């Protein structure tokens, strides 16, 4: 069996009364790109720091490349880390910065020069070796930080919000750049961010974190289409969350009673047990909802009063209010000149039963 590059077992950290991380289990396979995604204070940076050896865990284990490394000092872990503000050594030139980890490993001068040139080539900045870091732009500094980190081929590369300090355009560019380096070099990356778009674009798997614990681990598509909690549904993408009660269960299909007594059908995921009569939430992505023309039908239909129709470019968003006063949004591709629909007009929104996700109402039960 193949050894995972990184494995944590019940990793736990508290600061006084504050729980920073409450028992996290995570595996990172060779060549995999896993993102720790979550709001600030969710424990993702704490977890990364403990894997790097910069923060000591209270309990639990860290295995790197099949070796126990829970309390090993950082320099013995064979990891690479890219910091948020790059942490380039300001008194060393770019080439010296990249050479630093090689020098620490006792490589010979000619070998170091070759490797440094190769790394600079790889991040497409072969000209800047003799300059000091502050003479470079933010994006260039970011590339050098990447080069310094991959030049010695560590077992795993850790990245702590590395794009946080860049502006939007540069960030988009660097996302693709990091993804390219990942596929080209086949490195194993653990990446921390609070930006879901970053996570979705780059990751093989996303580890969603909230309140010092792991909420859900899965591929970006998994997280998007089958969130397991209200938090996951809410944090990733846009979602409509409807209050409902379980009326009956037939295999993996459930019948729910929505507000105003409307019957709704939805699939229930494997392993999620609900009893008839239980209060749940039904999540439907806005793009799964469509505004039904007169006479058209769907598995589920809700009536609502139109509030506004907004063209956001490629897509058009329809906002309406349900009978219980809740806002509901539907997103569709923009086409044709819009029919002038009167405000407050009654519209019907429909969706297929496969696109609804039944979620536990109480988040803590997830």
């Amino acid at each position: 069996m193949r050894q995972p590059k990184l494995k944590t077992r019940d990793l736990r950290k508290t600061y006084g009364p504050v729980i920073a991380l409450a028992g996290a289990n995570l595996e990172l396979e060779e060549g995999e790109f896993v993102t720790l995604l979550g709001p600030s204070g969710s424990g993702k940076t704490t977890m990364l720091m403990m894997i790097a050896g910069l923060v000591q865990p209270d309990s639990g284990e860290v295995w790197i490349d099949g070796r126990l490394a829970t309390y090993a000092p950082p320099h013995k872990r064979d990891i690479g880390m890219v910091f948020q503000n790059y942490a380039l050594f300001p008194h060393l030139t770019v080439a010296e910065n990249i050479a630093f980890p090689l020098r620490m490993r006792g490589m010979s001068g000619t070998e170091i020069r070759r490797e440094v040139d190769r790394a600079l080539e790889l991040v497409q900045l072969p000209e800047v070796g003799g300059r000091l870091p502050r003479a470079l732009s933010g994006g260039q500094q970011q590339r050098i930080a990447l080069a310094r980190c991959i030049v010695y081929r560590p077992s795993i590369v850790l990245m702590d919000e590395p794009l946080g300090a860049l502006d939007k355009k540069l960030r988009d560019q660097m996302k693709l750049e990091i993804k390219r380096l990942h596929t080209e070099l086949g490195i194993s990356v653990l990446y921390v961010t609070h930006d879901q778009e970053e996570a979705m674009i780059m990751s093989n798997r996303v580890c969603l974190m909230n309140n010092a614990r792991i909420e859900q681990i899965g591929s970006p598509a998994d997280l998007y289409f089958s969130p397991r909690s209200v938090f996951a549904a809410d944090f990733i993408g846009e979602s409509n969350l409807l209050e409902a009660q379980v009326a009956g269960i037939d295999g993996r299909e459930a019948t729910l009673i929505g507000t105003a007594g409307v019957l709704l059908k939805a699939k229930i995921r494997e392993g999620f047990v609900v009893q008839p009569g239980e209060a749940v939430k039904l999540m439907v992505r806005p793009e799964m909802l469509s505004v039904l023309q007169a006479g058209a039908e769907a598995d589920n239909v809700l009536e609502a009063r139109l509030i506004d129709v907004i063209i956001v470019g490629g897509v058009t968003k329809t906002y309406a209010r349900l009978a219980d006063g809740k806002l509901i949004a539907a997103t569709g591709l923009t086409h044709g000149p819009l029919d002038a629909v009167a405000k407050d007009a009654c519209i019907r929104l429909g969706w297929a039963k496969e696109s609804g996700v039944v979620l536990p109402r109480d988040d803590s039960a997830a």
Partner: protein
Amino acid sequence: MITARGLEPKAAGASRTERYGRPGAAWMRSWPMVPILAFLLAAFVYPVAQLLWLSLFGKTGTFTFEHYQRLFTAPVYFTVMRNTFEIAGWTTLLCILGGYPIAYLLATTTDRARNSLILWVLLPFWTSFLVRTFAWIVLLGRRGAINSFLESAGLIEAPLALLFNMTGVMVGMVHALMPLAVLTMLSVMETIDRNLMPAAATLGARGGQAFWRIYFPLSLPGVAAAGLLVFITALGFFITPALLGSPRQTMITQVVIQQVEEMLNYPFAGAIAMLLLAMALFVFYLYDRALGMTTLAGGGTQSQSGAGEQGPLARAFSAMGGMLTAILGRATDWVAILWEALAAGKPDRTARVSGRVMLRLGVAFLLVFLAAPSFFIVPVSFTTDAFIEWPPKWGSLKWYVAVLEHPTWITAITRSLIVGFLTAALAMCLGAPAAFFLARASFLGKTAAMGFILTPLILPRIIIAVALFYFYARLGLIGSPLGLILGHTVLALPYVVITIMAVLKNYDQRIDQAAASLGASPPRVLWHVTVPLIRSGLIAAFLFAFVTSFDELTIALFVSAGAATTLPKQMWDDAILKVSPTLAAVSTLLLVFVTIVILAAEFFQRRAAKRG
């Protein structure tokens, strides 16, 4: 000369009929700098220049170099100069060796720990040199605390000679100046990115390599700045060598005082003071050539020139430095590897004794050395004996009674309080507008203006003191409180400007702009918005200025004639005759008072920082 960036008139031909159609002239907006610069020119630059002039004239009023010739030909002055350099040099070295670990720990610990630890550096920094020197007499004397402890422990037969020799002077000077070294190095170390050491660790560097190759080179500007400030300040010292040393440790400032007080040879004293000034400027010049003056302002790592711009000599030096730090890193790591071999750390257990623990122990010891001695003065002040001895015979308030009943002490205390308050008030009036302007406007020569205002802080005080003495003698201001206040204001201004600028750095100027957009005129913005928000910082600046004056001896020594003496002057006069329990009582009172004022100032400053 002074232009506000971005505000230059765009088109020269713009309509001049409309009042708001054109910006005001650039020099008009620089009015806040006018009072402080005028004051410093009159009360600082002019007197010092006059002193230089005077030192070039003989008794008959003819132009001559005779005073300088005498300085360089009489062997006694050569000895004094050698002493001065030797003592200042050793003091600098020891202050940096001892101060570096403290500054390093303060710069790398948590904010909370730093806030409480730094008080143990700030308190001795602000405690009167006189009080601290007396404390060392209590500790180091033949019948002092250290000797009596060692004797009772059976470690020595006869008391060690710790006082009235080089040992006493070094202990006193290092103790006096180490806080300055710590604070200067700290200001640079705080600019070093905290992620660099963790980054080096993840890249495979052990603690030793990471420190010597990354942290140490980046902290060097701070070390150099601290060395410069300590060396220059040490050059002008006289309290410590006079009270803790023997005639063999006579320093140059003592000779100046002797020439003025005993020989009444003013031009010669002026010549010596000028020599001291020349030495100070020469050291500054060397520093500037080697590192650039900007590093002094705590600019730290940002101000180094790019690698491409270095000359061959600088590159050779940096190559040598690189090799040296690499070797030091290796050496440190070998110790660490050896240690690991002996007490192997396991990956499944937390590490035991780390370098960090050793650092904490070392720093704890150094902080005790800095903060504890002053408190030895307290028990001595309650003694029943008529002389200072350890352990003191407890249980008498008679020395306090003696102080409080003696009119000389009461007048001195009152005068010091009044002079202190008026100095602080004047310094605030002159310094606050300048601080606002320096913090907010950007203009050509800003660094120069800042440097000029800070000069009185850096120059040996004796130069200002002697210069003011001549100046006042001609104006008839000797012995008047006004003369003292003006002199003390020169010294207090740097503290006021630095403190207020520090507070304004955290101040969000958009709050002012918001107030202005809501219809408040500039004075109303200042009064209703800015001042309430930075009130704590203003109070802190006032208190620092007050303590600077309240504690000041050098200028008081020259400017206040026999009758109008201040508290430090009275203490000095007493100490020259005999260090008695009376002085211990006065010192205790002073210690308590200054501690309260400084803690209050710190409190207000931190509150201001929190609000900003």
